[in-house]
């Protein structure tokens, strides 16, 4: 599974969205962090190729996701798309502008929600939104009007006067999201926007995004390591592992690639009863983490396995089991993803 084949396989999606056009085109992006010499207290790091020939197209009006575990190179990629970092080689074209040559234009084309809120932490929610709007070029009156509208839309009006620092993690994140929305931009780049949010706040985020897509055809580039979120909100997703795009398609199409398999999770009360021959046989195919085993099996194999662990002497040792259709996590693993660390919640 290489970058090239991954891109070539989304022919169906391209045909379906015939009217869509490319908002953001990335070609052969390479970014290498130099080796770091060891110091006292800090170990030496070898040279790291954070992005290794990344190519992808984001189309108008879609929610395009970058899915991968921590350290896969998602944030490095996003930093280059937002003009915060220059690639070693490759091109980034956003709405017809060459961002490698003119990184300063990114701020006039997109709104970015980074992972950090340090710059806004000591401001009140209202002032954070208003200031961000003014720095996005709005005059005072427009910034205040948009601030009020966005805070109302996201349900933040009751806490508008409180400093971000004093809010819970999820509320703070929502306030930063509000700041990102003031001063409308055609492209939104959101780096794990819903981290720490409760379901109500998450819904507020996704409906605000949907309204902007319906109103102006806004395009969203979303970074996530949350598999469930990726499956539910994304139109298309690029799966990133070790700096490469290992697959890029709609979540449904990606899952169809591993539809021949189901996932069986077994949780043992204490240790797995390896003296039972059926269990011993399953052991080679299981990914064990503590008392939990995860197996990816063909449907009839899975049925047989369930029958054997629930029927025989193994049942006494079994705490819980689930049988599920594949998720994007299974896609990631089936495509050769090596790192654990995708989140399901």
């Amino acid at each position, binding site marked *: 599974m*290489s*970058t*090239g084949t991954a*891109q*070539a396989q*989304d*022919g169906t999606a*391209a045909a379906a*969205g*015939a*009217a*869509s*056009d*490319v908002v953001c*085109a990335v*070609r*052969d992006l390479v970014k290498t962090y130099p080796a770091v010499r060891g110091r006292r207290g800090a170990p030496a790091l070898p040279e790291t190729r954070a992005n290794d020939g990344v*190519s992808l*197209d984001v189309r108008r009006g879609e929610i395009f996701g970058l899915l991968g575990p921590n350290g896969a190179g998602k944030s490095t990629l996003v930093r280059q798309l*937002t*003009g*915060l*970092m*220059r690639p070693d080689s490759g091109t980034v*074209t956003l*709405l*017809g*502008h060459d961002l490698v040559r003119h990184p300063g*234009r*990114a*701020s*006039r*084309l*997109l*709104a*970015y929600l*980074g*992972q*950090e809120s*340090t*710059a806004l932490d*000591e*401001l009140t929610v209202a*002032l954070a939104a*208003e*200031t*961000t709007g*003014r*720095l*996005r*070029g709005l*005059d*005072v009156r427009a910034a205040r009007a948009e601030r009020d509208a966005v805070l109302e839309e996201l349900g933040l009006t009751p806490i508008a006067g409180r*400093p971000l*620092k004093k809010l819970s993690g999820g509320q703070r994140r929502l306030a930063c999201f509000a700041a990102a929305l003031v*001063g409308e*931009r*055609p492209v939104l780049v959101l780096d794990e926007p819903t981290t720490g949010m409760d379901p109500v706040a998450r819904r507020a985020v996704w409906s605000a995004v949907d309204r902007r897509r319906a109103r*102006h*055809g806004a395009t969203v580039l979303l970074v996530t390591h949350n598999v469930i979120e990726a499956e539910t909100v994304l139109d298309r997703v690029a799966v990133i592992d070790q700096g490469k795009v290992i697959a890029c398609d709609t979540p449904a199409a990606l899952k169809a690639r591993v539809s021949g398999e189901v996932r069986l999770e077994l949780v043992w009360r204490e240790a797995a009863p390896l003296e039972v021959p059926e269990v011993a046989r399953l052991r080679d195919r299981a990914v064990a983490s503590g008392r939990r085993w995860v197996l990816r099996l063909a449907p009839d194999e899975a049925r047989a396995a369930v029958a054997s662990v629930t029927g025989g002497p193994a049942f006494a040792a079994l705490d819980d089991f689930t049988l599920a259709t594949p998720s994007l996590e299974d896609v990631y693993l089936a495509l050769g993803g090596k790192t654990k660390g995708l989140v399901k919640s």
Partner: protein
Amino acid sequence: MSDRTTGAVRATPASGAAAATPAPVQGAAPLAPGARFFPALAAVYRAQLSRARVARIPLLFVATFQSVGIMILMRGVVDGGSEARAVVAGSSVLVVAFVALNLLAQYFGQLRAGGGLDHYATLPVPPASVVLGAAAAYASFTLPGTLVTAVFGCLLFGLPMGGLWILAAVVPLAGAALAGLGAALGLLAPRQELATLAGQLGMSAALLLGVLPPERMPAVIVWARDLLPSTYGVEAFARTFEQSPDWAAVAFDLGVCGAVGVVSLAVATWAYRRAAVR
């Protein structure tokens, strides 16, 4: 956005071989206007001032108490004359050094280390607006503490208070010089701890070289004293306590502060650009 209709280009899924060619996008979308210099500066200044309510008030007290404490200590050693003038002026300007140099260096160091600069770097705001807005806000934070210290010092050492209006010039000019220096240190330091350290050292230098009367110092230290921008603020302020102040010298000292301020703020703006895009 939707106003780019005619130049619409169909999605061309890049196959492995064709991936090297950039996507043919015609008719670039219009750029949103950027923020202009003064409105952006005003917005940053206002936001920074509001931070004082949340985070900075305890530190402003620390700055004032520290200076008042130093004056009380020095009261036992110094009585009247040029030494008393130097102590009061030095302690007052020390408040500026503490807040504008030390705290601003820490703030920018922390902002840079914590990824907070990304927020500003992804907004179309002139770098000078961010640096000057923050520097101006920190210089403003120092005004109440400087006034309290100066008034207390005048009462303690029996100095005339008629010349305190000069603080209206000393605080902004010394503030510009020291805040520019603080911002540059915070943005140039390779690590956050080094930014804090540089800020602390700068403030210690302002303390030792500014508060202690220069008459008792060895020549080398006096030279070092001449290199520190806060010294000129101290000198200008100290001169105004005299019976008939040498206004030309006061103006010269303030001019030095202003010139250092312009240079250091320019360096800080350059450092900000450098830190924002890595």
